[in-house]
C-alpha cells in the first residue's frame, strides 16, 4: 500500500460525496413537489376554515344580537395583567387568565376578543374586574363599568388598560368601540 492506496481513499471519498450530492439533488426535487402540494392543500384548508368560522358566527352570534368585548393595552407600564373578569347584567360571562405570551401580544398592539355573545335590544351594564400586579409590585385589583344601549346591529365594547402618567397609576377604561 502506498500512494495508490491514498489516492483510492481520496477517490472513495469523492465518490461518496458525489453519491450524497446526487441524492440531495433528487431529494430537493421531491421536496419541492411535495412542498407545492402542501401549499395548495393548506390554502384550501384555510379557505374551508374561513367558511366554517363564518357559518359558526352567523349561526351562533347573528349580527343583530351580537356583542363582543375586546381587551387592549396602551403602554401599560404600571400594571402587569394577570386576569380579567367580565360581568354582564349581573351575570359572570368570562374569567380569562392571561399567559405571558398573550400579555406580550397585547403590549405590542394586539387586541384580545375576550367575550362574544348575544344581547337583546335595550340598556345593559358591563362590569370588568382587572387583576394583576400594580405599582411597587403590589397585588392590584380594579373594576370599571359601562352602561350601554344595545340596538339592532353588533355592539363592540373595549376594555383598555392604560397609564395615568400624572400619578403613576394604571387606568382602566371601559367604552364602546368607536
Amino acid at each position, binding site marked *: *500500500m*502506498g*500512494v495508490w*492506496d*491514498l489516492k483510492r*481513499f*481520496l477517490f*472513495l*471519498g469523492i465518490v461518496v460525496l458525489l*453519491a*450524497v450530492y446526487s*441524492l*440531495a439533488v433528487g*431529494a*430537493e426535487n*421531491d*421536496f*419541492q413537489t*411535495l*412542498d*407545492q*402540494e*402542501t*401549499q395548495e*392543500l*393548506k*390554502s*384550501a*384548508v*384555510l*379557505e*374551508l*376554515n*374561513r*367558511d*366554517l*368560522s*363564518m*357559518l*359558526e*358566527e*352567523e*349561526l351562533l352570534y347573528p349580527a343583530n344580537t351580537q356583542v*363582543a368585548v*375586546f381587551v*387592549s393595552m396602551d403602554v401599560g407600564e404600571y400594571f402587569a395583567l394577570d386576569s380579567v373578569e367580565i360581568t354582564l347584567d349581573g351575570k359572570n360571562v368570562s374569567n380569562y387568565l392571561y399567559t405571558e405570551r*398573550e400579555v*406580550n*401580544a*397585547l*403590549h*405590542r*398592539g*394586539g*387586541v*384580545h*376578543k375576550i367575550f362574544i355573545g348575544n344581547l337583546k335590544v335595550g340598556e345593559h351594564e358591563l362590569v370588568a374586574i382587572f387583576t394583576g400586579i400594580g405599582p411597587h409590585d403590589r397585588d392590584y385589583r380594579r373594576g370599571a363599568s359601562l352602561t350601554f344601549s344595545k340596538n339592532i346591529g353588533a355592539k*363592540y365594547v*373595549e376594555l383598555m388598560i392604560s397609564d395615568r402618567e400624572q400619578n403613576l397609576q394604571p387606568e382602566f377604561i371601559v367604552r364602546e*368601540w368607536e
Partner: protein
Amino acid sequence: MPTIFFMRSLVKVVPAAILMVVLCGPATAGQKDGFKVNDPHYGEVLFNFYQQEYFTALTDLLVSRDFNRLIHHQAEAALLEGGLLLSWGQHEEADQIFERLLSNTDDQAVRDRTWFYLGKVRYQRGYVDAAEQAFLNIRQPLPLELDAERLNLLARVYIDQERYSAAAAVLSGWEGPEIWLNYARYNLGVALVRMGQLEAGAELLSQVGTIWAYDEEQLALRDRANLALGFAYLQAGLEGNAKPILQRVRLNGPFSNKALLGAGWADSANNDYHKALAPWQELNRRELLDSAVQESLLAVPYAFSQLDAEPQAAEYYARALNIFDAEIVRLDVAMDDMGNGQLITDLLDQDQSSAGGWYWQLASLPNDDRARYLYFAIADHNFHEGLKSYRDLMSLGEHLDVWQTKLSTYHDMLNTRKNAYSKRLPILNERIAEFDVVEMQASYEDLQQRTTAARNEHDVLALATASEQEQWRRISLLEDNITWSQQESAALREKQSILKGLLLWNMEREFNIRAWHQDKQIEKLGEEINKTVRNFTSIDTTVGGIPETVFEFDSRIAFLQLNLDQMKRKLQLAKERHATYLYGLVVGEMQAQRKRLVSYRAQARFALASIYDRLSMKGQ
C-alpha cells in the same frame, strides 16, 4: 455554505421584518410594533400574529375582511396577509400578494426591501432561481447591511447554480462591513477555486481562515474556510500546504472530523506516518456514523503497515472489521425498526411545541437506537422542512376533526330549532292571521273623519263627555213628552231651557280645548297603529323567513360537511406521501451508510488477508 448557516439564525425574523418594513417603516427598539388599531378585529388578527398563531390569525383576517370589519386597515390587512402566509410557509401565495401589492406601490425603497426579504425566503426554501429573480428585481442600493447580505446571497445563488464566474463577478472588488466582507471573501474564494484559480482563491480563503472570531458563527466560518482551503490543496497535490491550514480547524467544532482526516492524509502523503497516526487515532474514538471516523478505522492500520508494524496493523484491521460488522448489524436492525409511518409518529410524539410554521424545530429524538441514525437525517434541510410540513398537515387534520364535531352539533342544533319552530309557528301564524290591519286602519280613519267633521260643523255634542251627552239626551227626551206643549208644563219648559242652555254653554266653552286634545290623541293613536303594524309585519317576515334561514344554514352545513370530508381525505393522503418521503430520506441515508460500511469492511478484509499473507511468507 455559510449563508445557510447564517440564515438559520436570521430566518425567524424574516416575516416579521417584512411586516415591519412594509407597514411601519424603520423600527426602533422599544417601539410599539403596530400603529393605532382602529378596527378591533384587526387588532385581534395582530394579537394572534404576535403569538405566532398564524393559521388562526389568517382565518380571523379572512373572516373579518369578508364581514367588512377592516374598513380602516384595508391596505395594511393585505400586507399582513402576505406576511402571515409567509410565516405559515405559504411563500408562493405570499409572493403573489406581495408582487401584486408592490406593483401598486410607488415607494421604491419599500419595494426593494420587500424583494430582498422575498429573495432571502425563497433561497431558504431552496427556490434558487426564484430567489435570483427576486434579488434582480431590486432597483436601488439597499442600506449597507442589507446590501452586503444581498450580494452574498446572490453569490451563493450563482454558486449553487454552478455559475462560478457570475458569483466571482458579483463579489470581486466589493468592500463592505467586516462581517460581510468575510462571507464575501469565503464565497469568492470557493468560486475561484472551483473555477481552477487556486492561488487567487487560496489567498481569500486564507484571509478568512485567520480572522479573529468572537462568536460561534464566526468560528464556524473560519473553520469552513480552513477546511475548504486544506482540501483544495490536498486535491491539487499540495499536501505540504494543506496540513498547517487544516490544523487551524478547531478540534471540537463541527468540521473537526474532516480536518483531522485531511491532516492525516497530508502527513501520509509526505510519508510521515508517525505524525499521521495522531489525528487518525483521535478520530478512531469519535462517533462511528461520521464517514471520516469510518475512514480513520482503515487509515490507522494502513499507517502501521507503512511503518512495518504488521502485527499492530493486523490488530487494528481486525478491530475495524469487528466494528464494521457490529455496526452493519445494528444498522439493519434499526432499518427494520424504522417502520414507515411509525417513525414519523414517534418523532412527533416527542414534540411538545405548539407553534407552527417556520419557527418550529424538533426538540428531541426518540429515546432508542434509531436516534443515532435520525440525528444525521434530521440535520438535513429537506428532512427537517418535510417534517415541519407533515406537522402542519397533522395539526390541520386535528383542526378539521374539531370542526367535524362542531358541524355535527350545529346540525343537531338546527334540527332542534326546526322542531321548535314547527310547534310554535302554527300558533304564531294564527295570531298573525287574527290581526286585521285593514279593519284597524278603517276604524282609525272613521274616527279621524268624525273628529274633522265635528270641528268643521262646530258639533259641540260630538266632542262632549259621555256624561254630558247622557245629560243632553235626557233633557232632550223631555221634549218628546205629550204634555210638553201644554200650559201646566210652562215652568218645566223654562227650567229645561235653562238647564239645556247651561249644558250647551259648558260644552261650547270646552269645545276648542276638547278639539285640540282629540287631535292630539288621534295623532298618537295613528303612531301607535303604525308601530303595531310595523311590528306585526316584522314578525310576519321573520316567521316567514325562519324556514328559509334554517334551510340556508342546513344547506351550508351539508356543503361544508362534504368539503370537510374531502379535505380530510386529501390531508391523509398528503400525510402519507410526506411520511413516505421522509422515510425514504432516512432509509436512503442509512443505506448509503451501510454501503459505505460494507465497502470499508471489504477493504479491511482484503488488507488483513494481505498482512497475514506477508506475515506467513516472512515466517516461511
